[in-house]
């Protein structure tokens, strides 16, 4: 999952150095702690709540993973989230059909922003942090133009159904997350999926190997944008209203999730599953701290520490694995 087909994950040591494993373990440990603290934590509805809360961040982190795998940065996630949220809140469309239209609109907005990013970065050769910074500011402004203060209301069908659980057990939003994961599994086994890892590791070598680097980069940005749009859609389902600043608070958490999930900022390493679970872990951490009575003031403190500790942990394991490999 972490790197290429059938590499380190085939060996036990590989499993340990895999960032995905670390974050899964972290999540499980946290969940155990949580269940000790909070009675009723192990019920389906509590789990459903957790999933609902984590989905927007998880899907946004999934999108960001595409760009980070390329070795770039994508700050536009904040803008797209906000924009999609306010659009859905000011133009609610009723019923299931309306929800379908809304999802299409949300993803299209995200993909369009992603396309702009992709064109400037891949074909224009500009630095991704600069371009996405500008795009973020632009989309945030656009969000403010659409809705200048928190308000509006998202269509009932969306906010009800997508926060509900199917058959009382499986959270609907969880299905969306699974769908994203499934799409990623398919993408990984396409030529573009492999090309993504190649370009992120060494652009020149990728080009000399026959990969169309520009096209790969552009596609990555578009897919990222589409996922941001979807995340915005799920966020709207959660909050049921619009807020032009909805995305800003999530911006840094998105990158934290990706880091926690084992995707390296240098590119060419990591994966989507880790980012999504990293997001879930961060949100769960918040819940745990809240339940333990930690003042909301200090939640940020703990989040920061957890981020740092997780990265150190992964570094240590990677270092140990490399040492062992060299002496083997």
């Amino acid at each position, binding site marked *: 999952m972490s790197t290429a087909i059938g590499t380190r994950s085939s060996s036990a040591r590989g499993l340990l150095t895999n960032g995905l494993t670390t974050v899964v373990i972290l999540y499980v440990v946290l969940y155990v702690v949580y269940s000790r603290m909070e009675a009723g934590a192990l019920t389906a509805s509590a789990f459903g709540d957790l999933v609902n809360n984590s989905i927007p961040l998880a899907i946004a982190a999934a999108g960001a993973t595409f760009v980070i795998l390329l070795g770039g940065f994508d700050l536009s996630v904040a803008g797209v989230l906000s924009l999609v949220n306010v659009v859905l809140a000011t133009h609610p469309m009723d019923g299931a059909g309306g929800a379908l239209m809304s999802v299409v609109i949300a993803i299209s907005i995200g993909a369009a922003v992603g396309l702009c990013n992709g064109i400037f970065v891949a074909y224009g050769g*500009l630095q991704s942090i600069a371009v996405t910074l500008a795009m973020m500011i632009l989309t945030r402004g656009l969000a*403010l133009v659409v809705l200048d203060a928190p308000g509006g209301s998202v269509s009932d069908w969306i906010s009800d159904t997508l926060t509900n659980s199917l058959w009382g057990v499986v959270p609907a939003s969880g299905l969306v997350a699974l769908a994203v994961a499934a799409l990623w599994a398919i993408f990984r086994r396409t030529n573009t999926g492999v090309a993504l890892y190649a370009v992120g590791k060494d652009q020149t070598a990728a080009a000399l190997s026959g990969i169309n680097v520009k096209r790969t980069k552009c596609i990555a940005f578009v897919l990222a944008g589409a996922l941001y749009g979807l995340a915005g859609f799920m966020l709207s389902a959660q909050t049921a209203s619009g807020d032009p600043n909805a995305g800003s608070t999530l911006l840094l958490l998105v990158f934290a999730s990706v880091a926690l999930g084992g995707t390296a900022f240098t590119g060419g390493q990591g994966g989507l599953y880790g980012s999504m679970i990293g997001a879930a872990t961060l949100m769960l951490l918040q819940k745990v701290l809240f339940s333990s009575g930690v003042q909301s003031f200090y939640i940020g403190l703990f989040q920061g520490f957890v981020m740092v500790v997780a990265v150190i942990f992964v570094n240590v394991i990677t270092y140990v694995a490399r040492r062992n490999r060299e002496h083997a």
Partner: protein
Amino acid sequence: MLNLRDESATAGTGFVRGEDKRGAVRLQRETVSAIGVYLVCILALFLSKFINPEFGSFHQLQTILTLASFLIVVSYGQGLTVLIGGLDLSIPSVITVGGVLAAAWVSTLSPAGFWWQIPAVLIVCSLIGVVNGLGVTLLRIPPFIMTLASGIIVYSICLGATGGTPSGAAPNSLSTLMAGRIGGVPIVNVFVVIFCAIAIFMQSRTSFGQRLYAMGSNATAAKIAGMRINAITVCTYALSSALAGFAGMMLVGYSNGATLRMGDSYLLPSIAAVVIGGSSILGGRGTFVGTIGGAILLTIFDMVITSLGLAQGWRTMISGGLILAAILLQHEGALDWIRSVGRRRN
């Protein structure tokens, strides 16, 4: 059988080693882009006169410089961390720390405030940077994560300690700095000029600055060339935090009080100023001269947009669009084209 197909009687005439010639050309690009930023500033000021005849007056320029002072100070720190290939996302929180401490702790009137309390606050702020630097070097944590985490942690502590509303007022020294005048010009303007002069000098003409460029260009090579890259990294982050703390104090002097979110509006603009000014986000390239231009440009944009009385949304969009335009102009192709146009005119 020797099969000579000698195309030239004398070897090498008319042939210029392709690779070697381009070097001279590329080094001038940084100067061009820095000049370009200032030209756009002047253009913006000129155009703004149509919006409001007041703009462009000497008094107006002083205001611009005053308003830009915070961003200029912060962008220098950000620029230094970017130069070595890192990033400092803890700046907003450190601004808050500096401001909160200045307001709440530094005594308002007594001279002790100026001589040792303010330096003490600066030292506390720089310690945050030291922690950042240690995390990046010893623990190999990517700068993005490290500074992000420390920023969140520091902010939480502030939040907890102040209970949400920081108290206190600005110490005399700071209010004088920000509001006073000397010889007809605001003191802060003089301060900015002196600061910029020292900052530019430090970055481009001292061995410390040279080492930063080397590290940003190739950290491994820098280490092999004998530079103590860990120590330099820690110093750089410490300096960035100290400057952010000072900017926080400046803000307190300006608004006579601190708020918890006062640093928020300086993070992205500091990155933007550095990028617009011609520095590469990957490090090893760029000058503070360009960054100053970027900071001033952003301030001018902000003022013009505010004066247009537009809703915040349109203001944000326009500023985003302008930043995008500035970035596009930075592009090597655009610069080449501009230079070739200039050459053709001659």
